[in-house]
């Protein structure tokens, strides 16, 4: 579609925004030998989990002297254990300079959102760790947009970051778009585009499928393709192996 829409020279790449969940190592102080011992200990709890993971060093809670931080040693130690240090969340200018010196990316600062299980709680659990014992740099819970009024012809509702929930019909000639999932608690008669930034796991849910177009991450279907399957009934639409699949919503 983009080829016909854009007859100009095809580019070798495209820039897209992406939200990637990373593991952060929150450093309190740095001692080369202790660091390696602690790291080895953590990895032994869940060897599979740590293999080849990208890691961010977070210095928000660093209590030692900045000059003691040796990023080259940290990188080297981690690499010996198959962990790739990719960046640093620095708390001050000194740390940023050190990180740059080690060619590490500077991650935007701000509050680190801790998972409900704190590192302490996770460490206390004796069970095999499938969760990361370190703090995860989870993206902020994406903003969900909730609409209670009928979406009328000519109106466009956009949830650029998260899910879109509509507690009313979406009329023919209306358009609803979301970075995440789209839920329509009513008839979907207009156009619905989920995963507009490329999220292939996004889904569309509606109580009656009468749509002019449904799309997940750029894969779309029009009524001609939809009418034989789930038309005018409650369905969900998702992407499976690059094909849009319409399946009935089971009544529970």
């Amino acid at each position: 579609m983009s080829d016909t829409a854009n007859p100009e020279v095809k580019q070798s790449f495209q820039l897209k925004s992406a939200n990637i969940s990373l593991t952060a190592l929150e450093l309190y102080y740095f001692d080369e030998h202790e660091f390696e011992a602690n790291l080895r200990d953590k990895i032994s709890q869940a060897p599979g989990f740590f293999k080849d993971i990208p890691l961010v060093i977070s210095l928000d809670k660093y209590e030692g002297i900045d000059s003691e931080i040796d990023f080259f040693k940290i990188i080297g130690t981690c690499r010996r254990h198959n962990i790739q240090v990719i960046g640093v969340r620095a708390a001050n200018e000194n740390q940023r300079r050190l990180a740059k010196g080690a060619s590490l990316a500077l991650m935007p600062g701000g509050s680190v959102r801790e998972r409900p299980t704190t590192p302490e709680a996770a460490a206390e659990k004796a069970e095999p760790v499938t969760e990361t014992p370190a703090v995860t740099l989870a993206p902020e819970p994406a903003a969900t947009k909730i609409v209670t009024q009928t979406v009328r012809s000519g109106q466009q509702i956009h949830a650029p970051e998260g899910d879109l929930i509509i507690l009313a019909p979406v009329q023919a000639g209306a358009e609803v778009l979301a970075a995440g999932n789209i839920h329509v608690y009513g008839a979907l008669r207009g156009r619905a585009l989920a995963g507009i930034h490329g999220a292939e796991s996004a889904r569309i849910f509606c109580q009656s499928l009468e749509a002019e177009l449904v799309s997940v991450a750029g894969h779309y279907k029009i009524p001609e393709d939809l009418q034989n399957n789930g038309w005018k009934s409650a369905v969900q639409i998702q992407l499976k192996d690059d094909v849009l699949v319409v399946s009935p919503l089971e009544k529970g």
Partner: protein
Amino acid sequence: MARIIVVTSGKGGVGKTTTSASISTGLAKRGHKTVVIDFDVGLRNLDLIMNCERRVVYDFVNVIQGEATLNQALIKDKRVDTLYILPASQTREKEALTKEGVEKVINELSETFDYIICDSPAGIEHGALMALYYADEAVVVTNPEVSSVRDSDRILGIMQSKSRRAEMGQDPLKEHLLLTRYNPDRVERGEMLSVQDVEEILAIPLLGVIPESQIVLNASNQGLPVILEEDSDAGQAYDDAVARLLGEEREHRFMTAQKKGFFSRMFKGG
């Protein structure tokens, strides 16, 4: 304070002006002081249907631009003495209707009238936006066919976002669905959408169903609001709609094709 009601549809030719004429006449007949404003600058028709086209001296745009006073422009209806008509200009541009100008006229009318009926032009352009901007309520005139329903849906969406009430964050306009040119025989044959279909799609309360009738056309040509054809089904249907607008409970009629049912309903409903 006057109740300001816009009669609108999006689509043209569905019966906005016919409806404006009948609703304003019906309200006035019940003793409410009513004015009906024609917002269709350049394509004015209301004065024809109200049979006052030969009495137009000054118009809405003259008043907005200060070339005439409201009292000079208002035309008193000859049949119902609490009814006034503010005609549109036939020679001006639609842009002559400024927000400030319309507001000034509506505020002035609000002081003396009980009801202000705004007869909207078709489309979703400036004139239609001005007609709905100051309204408290909307009568959405729809024919039982897909394109008309779609356009009504569009205009409902515009009222949700572009009316003064929407811009000021006040309660939304009160919406009423008026289904016109309804032909139960054709609905039964599947050639027209049914009342239920339209109600289900638009999801707004039904004010009335006006049956398709030759009387409507004849009345328009004679310059007679069809509500004054009191023996006709269309006239009675408009009378029901006005009664419902005033809060009266009336059973919907003229919705089925069976002649027998039609008469029994007529005598029962009065």
